[in-house]
């Protein structure tokens, strides 16, 4: 009788970054997504980075942001701070899925050094790995101390938010782009997601709906700003503003006559960008050698640096695959966002979107893929990605 569109408002995705706090709430209308409200506020200078007051300041800001913007409800999904989560790759023999959690918990206790019932251990099956004549399953294991988790929850709860779920950054980042995996052939595609943060860069390699590889590289936009700051002898804030200004698209005529400042900035950031590209290339090499099958076809860059065409170009040259700026809010109605937040690729909203989508237990388009069957243990072997990537023979890398 009444053909009203079904409307399901998702929880607020809360991204407490090292220098900004972002909130994004979406709703499912029919078979599509639309933004209900979005808010972004920069943290004060004294509360940025590794400052101990960062979380307290951010929580106070979240309360204000929720009050000042048209968010629906106070349900929030956020992720544990990266410093509170330890991530290890484990290789276990093939054991039944029902026995896997207990085996991982036992192994993780020795790997992470946690004592009984003091930590939350979660894992993601990365895939099967051939090791000699033996097939093992590689797992990405996440561990967080209970006391740190409880402290974080307590802080978030003080903001008046109701925690719906607590996630980790890699999963949330990947979830923002997982919704683009719609067809059966997409499930075999290997995608690379590079999230350039203020202090760290996270490299996520996924195959279809499965997250297969995750690594954190200690290079971020902060390193780029510092390089510019050193080169031009200006403050970090000035370097940030300058780089932000230079990210704006320029006309061809102007680019031909590039100004010395632009050239100086590019010279300053080139080494950092190339270093980042080399690290990502090593990650790709590890993936290609470890997980046989389809090679990565495309890399998406997210974060505030994703709008830097120079970074995209440098990474593209270093990785030998298609590198593009990630557009997490593609095909989402962003009419409710402020015009200033709708500029560019909006890739800085990736984490907040991925967190918010955790409550959407559905796909947003026709889906004909097959669900991943859980990989199906002997003593575990800890894989040190840094050593493994560095020692990987170059001959095994196709396209490198």
């Amino acid at each position: 009788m009444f053909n009203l569109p079904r409307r399901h408002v998702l929880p607020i995705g809360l991204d407490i970054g090292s220098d900004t706090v972002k909130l994004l709430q979406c709703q499912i209308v029919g078979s599509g997504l639309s933004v209900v409200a979005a808010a972004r506020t920069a943290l004060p200078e004294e509360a940025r980075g590794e400052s101990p007051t960062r979380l307290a300041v951010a929580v106070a800001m979240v309360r204000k942001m929720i009050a000042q913007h048209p968010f629906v409800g106070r349900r929030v999904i956020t992720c544990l701070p990266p410093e509170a989560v330890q991530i290890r790759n484990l290789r276990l023999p093939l054991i039944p899925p029902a026995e896997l959690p207990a085996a991982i918990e036992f192994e993780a206790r020795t790997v992470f050094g946690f004592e009984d019932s003091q930590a939350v251990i979660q894992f993601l099956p990365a895939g099967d790995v051939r090791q000699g004549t033996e097939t093992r399953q590689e797992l990405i294991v996440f561990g967080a101390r209970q006391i740190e988790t409880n402290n974080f929850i307590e802080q978030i709860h003080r903001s008046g938010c109701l925690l719906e779920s607590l996630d980790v950054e890699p999963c949330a980042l990947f979830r923002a782009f997982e919704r683009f995996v719609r067809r059966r052939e997409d499930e075999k595609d290997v995608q690379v997601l590079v999230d350039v943060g203020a202090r760290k860069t996270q490299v996520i390699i996924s195959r279809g709906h499965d997250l297969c590889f995750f690594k954190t590289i200690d290079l971020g936009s902060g390193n780029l700003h510092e390089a510019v700051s050193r080169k031009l002898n200006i403050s970090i804030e000035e370097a940030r503003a300058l780089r932000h200004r230079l990210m704006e698209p320029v006309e061809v005529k102007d680019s031909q006559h590039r100004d010395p400042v632009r050239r100086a900035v590019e010279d300053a950031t080139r080494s950092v960008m190339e270093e980042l590209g080399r690290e990502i290339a090593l990650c790709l090499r590890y993936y290609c050698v470890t997980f046989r099958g389809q090679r990565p076809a495309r890399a998406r860059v997210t974060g505030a640096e994703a709008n830097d065409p120079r970074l995209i170009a440098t990474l593209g040259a270093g990785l030998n695959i298609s590198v593009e700026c990630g557009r997490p809010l593609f095909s989402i109605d962003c009419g409710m966002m402020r015009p200033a937040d709708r500029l560019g690729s909006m890739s800085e909203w990736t984490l907040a979107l991925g967190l918010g989508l955790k409550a959407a237990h559905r796909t947003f388009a026709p889906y004909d893929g097959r669900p991943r069957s859980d990989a199906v243990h002997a003593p575990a072997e800890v894989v040190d990605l840094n050593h493994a990537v560095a020692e990987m023979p170059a001959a095994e890398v196709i396209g490198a």
Partner: protein
Amino acid sequence: MRELEFLPPWYHVLRRRKRRLRLQTSLTLAVFSGFCLWNFQAARNVRNAEAALNSLRSQALQTENELGRLAYLEQLRVQWRQQDQIIARLGVSVESSRLIGTLESLMPPSMALLDFQIDTREQARPTEGLARVRASQADSTIPIDRTLVVRMHGVAPTDNDLASFHARLSEVPFFNNVAMTYARPRISKDYVMREFEITLSLNINAAGGR
């Protein structure tokens, strides 16, 4: 992708308990508010009922006063009706001394009364036809006309005095049927006088009497 959850179970329990506490608090407040409202309403109803009762009491008191006065008036009415009935039955009392005094004031000084007679005459009032039947059915008492008949026998020195006396009597409004029965000469000790007899009547029917 396999979803990971780092939110400890106690948080959901805490939220559930807080929700339950909030619900119970809300319910308690609602019940308490309802009770207070009901109590307030009941108190207001009692106040209104008391005000209505006081009003009714004052009205009843006023009615009682009026009823007392009405009973007194009714008693008076009954008493007066009885008196009226008695008067109607007996007729209006006419004091003889006042009647004689009136006649004396009308008589010439030389006139003397030899005899004075007062009779009360009761005569059924004549009714005809249906009215008589109805009167007899409604009340057994038949209406009676009462008349006080005064007969005066006296002597006057001259006819002139007699005529003058007769004329004065006729002028009195409550004397009816003033009539001279006879007037003849009378000789007593060589004096010739006029002997006369005059009758008159007074209507002594009560105003509302029968």
